[in-house]
């Protein structure tokens, strides 16, 4: 197995993880904030729906996505209109990763917002900041550690995503083959050494991510408390 091959699989995996995390961040922040601060009829139902991808078998999630995004699915017309095919591309892998990461990040945001005394926001508003600016200058900075931790969870979950991804993206070498998929296909083909190399790459990414996260969390802790 060539070094180029490992590098390409690794970079595809990172790209999928980063794009998935970045795409879900704004809606997770917004939804997490609403769930933490507001009470409205049907809130429990919303929370249950949000949690679904976390508790369903990933393969079931993948099948759902396939039906939704496929050419004959409800969203298929959108893709054919723009001439873009999503299914069986790395975008599909990113979407699968985003969907399974969504509940993790939303929950982390909800919990960290709920821990912040609304009084801080009220003082911010009394000092002349609108709701949006208060959110970005008061709420988000105060919740940043929990939000960051949620992003880390979503990102690492994306790195390991397998079940949903195989269904919507397939295992296409050079196009949709992420580290998790690559390890699986190599074991299937009897290429144990190749699988171990990809395992090592996975380990390196996960380890680096945890190192960066721990360092950042420690620094932000000393800066705040």
């Amino acid at each position, binding site marked *: 197995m060539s070094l180029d091959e490992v590098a390409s699989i690794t970079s595809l995996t990172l790209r999928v993880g980063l794009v998935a995390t970045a795409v879900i961040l704004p809606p997770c922040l917004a939804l997490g904030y609403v769930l933490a601060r507001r009470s409205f009829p049907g809130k429990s139902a919303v929370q249950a729906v949000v949690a679904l991808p976390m508790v369903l078998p990933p393969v079931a999630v993948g099948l759902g996505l396939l039906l939704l995004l496929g050419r004959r699915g409800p969203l298929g017309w959108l893709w054919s209109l723009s001439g873009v095919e999503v299914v069986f591309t790395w975008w599909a892998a990113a979407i699968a990763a985003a969907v399974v990461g969504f509940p993790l990040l939303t929950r982390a945001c909800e919990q960290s917002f709920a821990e912040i005394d609304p009084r801080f926001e*009220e*003082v911010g508003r*009394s000092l002349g900041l609108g709701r949006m600016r208060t959110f970005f200058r008061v709420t988000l*900075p105060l919740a940043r550690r929990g939000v960051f931790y949620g992003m880390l969870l979503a990102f690492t979950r994306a790195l390991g995503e397998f079940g949903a991804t195989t269904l919507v993206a397939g295992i296409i070498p050079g196009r949709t083959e992420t580290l998790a998929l690559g390890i699986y296909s190599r074991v299937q083909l009897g290429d144990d050494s190749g699988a171990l190399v990809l395992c090592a790459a996975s380990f390196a990414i996960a380890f680096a991510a945890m190192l960066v996260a721990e360092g950042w969390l420690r620094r932000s802790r000393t800066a705040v408390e």
Partner: protein
Amino acid sequence: MSSAGTLIEARLRRPGFALDVEATWDERVAVVFGPSGSGKTTLFRTVLGLLPAARARTRLAGVWLEDPERGLRIPTERRGLGWVPQDPTLFPHLSVEQNVRFGAARAGEDAERARRLAIEVLEIGDLLGRRVDGLSGGERQRVAMARALASGPRALLMDEPLAALDLPLRARVLPYLLRLRDELEIPILYITHDPDEAMLVGEVAVVLDAGRVVATGSPREVLWSRSVLPLSEALGLENVIDARAVEAGDTESTVETAVGLRLVVPAPLKRGESVRLGLRAQDVLLAGERPNRLSARNVFEAAVVDCEKRDGSVFVRLAPLSEGARATPDARLVAKITPAAAAELGLRPGASVYVIVKAQALRRLA
């Protein structure tokens, strides 16, 4: 009622609590006084516009903030109020300086001047580089006041700024507060459940009890009025006496009230010094004849104004009559005695009695 005045109407129903407040005043510095749970903070939150459920009409020193009849409801962030919450609520992710600068955008061109004034009046120049978590309770309170002040507010709303501090610390922060009051020209609303503070700080007092206004007026008068008496009684402050020292001594001094009543107090005072004294109604003794050879240092004659039976006691309102004393409604004292004692003394309006007050019972408030 002048159009430059303040008007606050606030109505809110919650399970177990109803706020129904209507108050107007023209004075610049108002204290909102009342026991815990009387709705003071809720009232503040409606003035701040933080309670959408409340029906409120608010005009602060001539500026309308909310008037449902005209569909006017200025959002919190555009009310221009400097709020000092009870718990200082400093932003923990910001330094002291960043906290003080937080509302600077609103102050516009005056931001720099407002900030410098805030730092100077509250003497927090040395704290600016510090982190919020390293501050003492008194420092936090001063920074919270500075933050509100530096935002160039059109009015200050202070919610028991001294309540969280212990007594010695209170004495250290109080001068800053009074300086703030005296050096600013903006309206101030000040919440307290402490009558000493209410009288010291306020030009007008709005007294709340169980979500309603029970009295509005000069702090001295309203803390005295019949409707407020049960409240001040709970606080041990039925009688508040303003006086000036006329004779100074090492252990005790003689003071004279505005109506000429002379009292001995157990405190070394400087001649001419002003004091405010608190006296519990239960510490006021009454006698039918002038007593002699008594340990109590203060004995004077008074006329009974009226008697009121309440909770198994009789509250006797008295107008002092001693040498030179001019009887005015303002000069009244309240004594709390048993019904049996009241009957034995034959107390009725107009009757004359002797009032006995131990010097030790006179508590200095300010």
